């Protein structure tokens, strides 16, 4: 405890004025400078402060990983291989994307880092960045990593309120960084519906009996013209009766009887009482014609129930609806084809219901 406090005081003394140094970033920068100036001891001192539980300032995950990485690199230069590997592993366990630039680090450091990778198994997926993707010509890139050779399954699944849909993007042996492109389609060839998605990376080490998973989430939205609704199926009120009903046949008879009755009423009751009935024989002749016509109509309609004109008209209406729906579907397909996918990173499955 006393040693730690002393180290902190020493670090503060070395780093300069307190106002500028009391942050992790400043200390890491100082450590990087010391490392690049091959002042390994000073670099180690600063880096150990960052990872020390006694360090009073906030340390982000990235800063901690950076500190472990440079600790490993510094210890490797000092010939402390086991310790270097331990720190490299600590960095890899926290961020499987951790890597050493061969142009910056020595072969010894790279070798120890490679050893750390073999001893550590972790998979990770890089968070999806905001982007707009035209699925006709572009792809959604995902970056995943496995620290060493592993059987990797990368699957995209809907989460939240969406109906479960998914597609496997990768399933094979992989090692290190891997870029996986997604064309925006599901397994059935349709565009993935808008909503929240999870990219799940499952890795099974081929060197060790270790398994690891990683997830990242993103929202998918469409940017396209609204789609048109197709016309609903023709209801009973929109189609003509294709057969004569008994009620219709009776209605025809009633119409004819109505004409007959009207003729009699006109001649017998609407004429002048002083002048007398107007041609009652004529009105009865018409009434007779109407009654006979109504009777023939009733018999005919009951014997010939098919209404070919109505059947043809219904077929025409159905064909017209079909043609209009085909046109709507065609226009919708064109709009769907022009859909732009809007990708945005998300925090998780979603808010609780």
């Amino acid at each position, binding site marked *: 405890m006393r040693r730690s406090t002393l180290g902190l005081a020493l670090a503060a003394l070395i780093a300069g004025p307190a106002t500028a140094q009391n942050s992790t970033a400043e200390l890491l920068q100082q450590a990087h400078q010391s490392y690049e100036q091959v002042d390994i001891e000073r670099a180690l001192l600063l880096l150990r402060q960052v990872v020390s539980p006694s360090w009073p300032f906030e340390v982000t995950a990235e800063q901690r990983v950076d500190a472990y990485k440079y600790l490993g690199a510094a210890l490797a230069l000092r010939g402390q291989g086991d310790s270097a590997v331990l720190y490299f592993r600590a960095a890899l366990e926290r961020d499987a994307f951790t890597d050493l630039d061969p142009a910056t680090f020595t072969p010894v450091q790279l070798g120890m880092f490679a050893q750390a990778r073999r001893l550590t198994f972790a998979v990770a997926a890089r968070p999806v960045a905001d982007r707009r993707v035209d699925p006709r010509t572009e792809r959604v890139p995902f970056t995943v990593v496995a620290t060493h050779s592993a059987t990797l399954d990368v699957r995209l699944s809907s989460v939240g309120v969406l109906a479960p849909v998914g597609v496997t993007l990768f399933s094979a042996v992989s090692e290190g960084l891997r870029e996986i492109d997604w064309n925006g389609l599901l397994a059935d060839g349709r565009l993935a519906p808008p909503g929240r998605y999870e990219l799940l990376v499952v890795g099974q080490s081929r060197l060790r009996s270790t398994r690891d998973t990683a997830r990242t989430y993103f929202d998918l939205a469409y940017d396209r013209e609204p789609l048109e609704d197709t016309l609903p199926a023709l209801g009973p009120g929109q189609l003509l009766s294709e057969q004569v009903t008994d009620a219709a046949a009776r209605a025809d008879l009633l119409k004819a009887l109505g004409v007959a009755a009207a*003729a009699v009423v006109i001649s017998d009751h609407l004429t002048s009482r002083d002048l007398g009935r107007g*041609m009652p024989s004529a009105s009865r002749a018409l009434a007779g014609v109407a009654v006979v016509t109504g009777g023939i109509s009733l018999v005919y309609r009951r014997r010939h129930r098919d209404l070919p004109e109505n059947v043809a008209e219904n077929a025409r209406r159905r064909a017209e609806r079909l043609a209009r729906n085909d046109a709507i579907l065609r226009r919708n397909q064109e709009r769907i084809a022009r859909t732009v996918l809007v990708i945005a990173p998300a925090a998780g499955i979603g808010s609780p219901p």
Partner: protein
Amino acid sequence: MTTPAAAQRRIEAAAFVAAVELRVDPGSGVERFSGPMIGGEATLQVSGRWALAVRVGDGSLTARTPGGLNRDVGELSAEGRVRAGTELSFSAGASRRVYSTELARQRWNTLQLGVEGRLPFLGGAMQAVARGAFLPVVAVNGLDHPKTAYTIGTGIEYQLGQGAIGIVYSLERYNFPAKAMTQRLEQVSALTVRGALRLGRGRTP
């Protein structure tokens, strides 16, 4: 090339024969006349809704009561019709009818506002027809304007391809105002058989 407007203009030619009965009570008793009348009608369908019709008729009425004089009747009328839906139409028109006897000639000039309903049956092959008209203006030489003047009729029409045959019973009534304790009444009944032929495509207006 036929334009759409031209395609809608159709002509229907019709001929009719009617049995007509005229009853007149000039205040001294009922006189009755009857006889045939024939004529023709041409209808121009101006558009899907509008139509113009001209009708001419000529007949000879024989006196059926003692002391009556036979008379000839001639008629010319024109009217415009507008369809309101598939089963209803309204009309407005004018007509001139002349009764001629050996002694005198009586001219009837009328304006009429009418309505006609058609109810199809037997799948549209037939139509029940009902019509009526109010005659707001009836000018008869030597007589006052009638207090009441209307016409009403009913019938059946059969569609036969481009043609149609119809039979209609109709009644016209005229009640003239009372004068010197007497009132003149007239009534025309007719049973008309009419055949029509459409020249061009389309429905009967």
